[in-house]
């Protein structure tokens, strides 16, 4: 080939990806890639890996650079026009706080995880795919930080999100989810993140936040959503390819892959409990209910996916029926949790107003009025007396998902679901059969869980009192935490909207509260 001959796309893909590999001559392959075997996955031919996008690194840089340019010009315009004033209500901002502290650090964790998987896989196809996804995830966390940093100038709770991610009690839920995946082998990692999360469940994470942003006038967040969307579709495709590749390589892989799908579907579903409350309670203008989203994105779309996978011997994830039974309670149980413990959270909670409760009654006709409205009305009556209620005792946590034990029996919404196991003379407690099974399969892993409540009692979190723990979390008491009603965020918002008198009353309550 002469030096000035242009490569066609196919040749370019071959040169820039597959031809990057070589057969080692003086080291054993198993020494170079020691992590490819221990999970029990058998691979006979790495070249069977299909890359449906055939993206090469030169095209990648060009394409991403164009997207970034557009994104940053929109963010600039948003800042110059005080775009934060155009959101529906300052309560909406709390959804962004949850995103920045709970989701953005996972993008960074995914960047690390895919870099590791890219190094650990023994074939060049998955190596290149993982490396590109690793770069994507790093870009996503950066664009999210840059977009949301604008809100940090005007609202509380955004100032130290990575520190909080590593310490705050409810953030141990997303953190431990990713730590679990990253401390597994490369095949389990990609099954967990690329397939179970990105392929099966991502529509339930990204859609609610991005549509929520669009519905609530947050054009900055919508823009980073669009910017990430084309990457997400590539990641989803990778997730499906990973599964098919393993299943087609060897029959012995089937039960291992099924076990991982069972595990990571359940872990992902528990993580999405945070999204359920965001959808049903935190968006002033709602997109759809959690129940509707679960029916559309999991029961219908997920059901069709698993029908397709049946020819490989893969069935629906274990305990999917439980998720269907829980769909009319999940968001209410979780929002109640933050109402209980908002004095230790980095965002504000509130009792839904009457119109919002009516919406919940309509969307949840079998449960809301019967089980949840009475507690909200009681809490409201306490607040009306100037005695906003908080739960002052730390909760019991699930050893696996690390969420407080707030979930109820699959067939009884009035009774807490308790499960437990004994292992080497110690007791361990779980919120569900799904979480118990995960523990029982690998107890040596989960006995080490860093459970925030137990860590506080061991004296590892700055002290025994709430103010000491808040300081250790880098949360400012009376600013970042507690009820929206008495918050600086609300007082400022009212002031910016010209409602000065109301703002002064709120500020007085801040001082008194």
């Amino acid at each position, binding site marked *: 080939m002469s030096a000035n001959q242009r490569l066609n796309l196919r040749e370019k893909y071959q040169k820039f990806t597959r031809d990057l590999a070589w057969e080692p001559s003086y080291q054993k392959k198993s020494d170079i890639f020691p992590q490819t075997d221990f999970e029990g996955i058998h691979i006979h031919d790495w070249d069977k890996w299909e890359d449906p996008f055939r993206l090469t690194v030169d095209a990648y840089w060009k394409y991403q650079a164009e997207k970034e340019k557009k994104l940053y010009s929109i963010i600039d315009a948003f800042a110059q026009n005080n775009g934060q004033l155009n959101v529906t209500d300052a309560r909406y901002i709390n959804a962004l706080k949850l995103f920045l502290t709970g989701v953005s650090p996972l993008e960074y964790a995914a960047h690390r995880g895919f870099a590791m998987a890219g190094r650990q896989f023994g074939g060049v196809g998955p190596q290149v795919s993982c490396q590109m996804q690793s770069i994507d995830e790093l870009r996503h966390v950066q664009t999210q930080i840059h977009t949301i940093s604008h809100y940090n100038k005007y609202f509380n709770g955004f100032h130290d999100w990575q520190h909080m991610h590593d310490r705050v009690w409810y953030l141990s839920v997303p953190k431990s989810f990713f730590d679990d995946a990253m401390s597994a082998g490369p095949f389990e990692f990609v099954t967990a993140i690329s397939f179970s999360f990105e392929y099966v469940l991502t529509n339930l994470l990204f859609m609610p936040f991005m549509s929520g942003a669009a519905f609530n006038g947050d054009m900055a967040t919508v823009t980073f959503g669009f910017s990430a969307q084309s990457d997400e579709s590539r990641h989803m495709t990778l997730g499906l390819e990973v599964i098919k590749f393993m299943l087609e390589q060897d029959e012995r892989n089937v039960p291992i892959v099924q076990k991982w799908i069972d595990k990571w579907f359940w872990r992902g579903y528990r993580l999405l409990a945070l999204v359920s409350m965001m959808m049903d309670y935190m968006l002033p203008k709602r997109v759809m209910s959690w129940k509707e989203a679960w029916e559309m994105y999991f029961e219908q779309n997920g059901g069709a996916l698993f029908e397709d996978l049946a020819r490989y011997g893969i069935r629906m994830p274990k305990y999917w029926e439980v998720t269907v039974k829980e769909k009319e309670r999940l968001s209410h149980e979780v929002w109640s949790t933050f109402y209980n413990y908002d004095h230790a959270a980095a965002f504000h909670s509130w009792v839904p107003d009457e119109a919002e409760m009516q919406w919940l009654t309509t969307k949840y006709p079998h449960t809301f009025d019967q*089980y949840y*409205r009475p507690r909200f009305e009681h809490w409201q009556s306490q607040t009306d007396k100037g005695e906003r209620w908080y739960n*002052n005792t730390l909760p*019991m946590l699930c050893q696996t998902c690390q969420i407080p034990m707030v979930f109820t029996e699959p067939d009884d919404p009035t009774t807490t679901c308790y499960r437990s196991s004994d292992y080497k003379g110690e*007791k361990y*407690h779980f919120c569900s059969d799904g979480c118990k099974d995960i523990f029982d399969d690998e107890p040596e892993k989960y006995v*080490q869980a860093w459970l925030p409540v137990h860590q506080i009692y061991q004296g590892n979190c700055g002290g025994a009192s709430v103010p000491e723990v808040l300081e250790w979390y880098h949360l400012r008491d009376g600013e970042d935490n507690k009820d929206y009603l008495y918050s600086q965020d609300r007082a400022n918002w009212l002031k910016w909207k010209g409602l000065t008198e109301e703002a002064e009353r709120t500020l007085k309550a801040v001082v008194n509260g």
Partner: protein
Amino acid sequence: MPVTAMYDYQGQPKDVQANFHGNQLVYFGWDKHLMFCAPVCLPLPPDMPFGAVLTEVLPGVYGSHPDWARLDWEQAEWSLDQQPFTPDPQQSLEAQGIHHKSLLRFRVPGLDGIAGSAS
């Protein structure tokens, strides 16, 4: 297999009793009172008499519930680690089999939460 690993990996349990400075963890759940979103976790001295749990500990935990004023401990039905249990107020936690990370649940017939909603 207790963990999928590249060698015989042994985990270090993080929450053994020795890490709690002389206390043990005890979990309490008041059935049908889900206004308290989850059962609670408390570090208590193993030699604490059960009676002290009723008079000194639980009022601070559950006293803010409207049902609390109507609660009569004589009527309470208990379970310990999911088995029926009759606590002895005189005896210590340890002496009646309430161990580190034990779960105590109680229910009082007739008290079913705010407006009977299990809240």
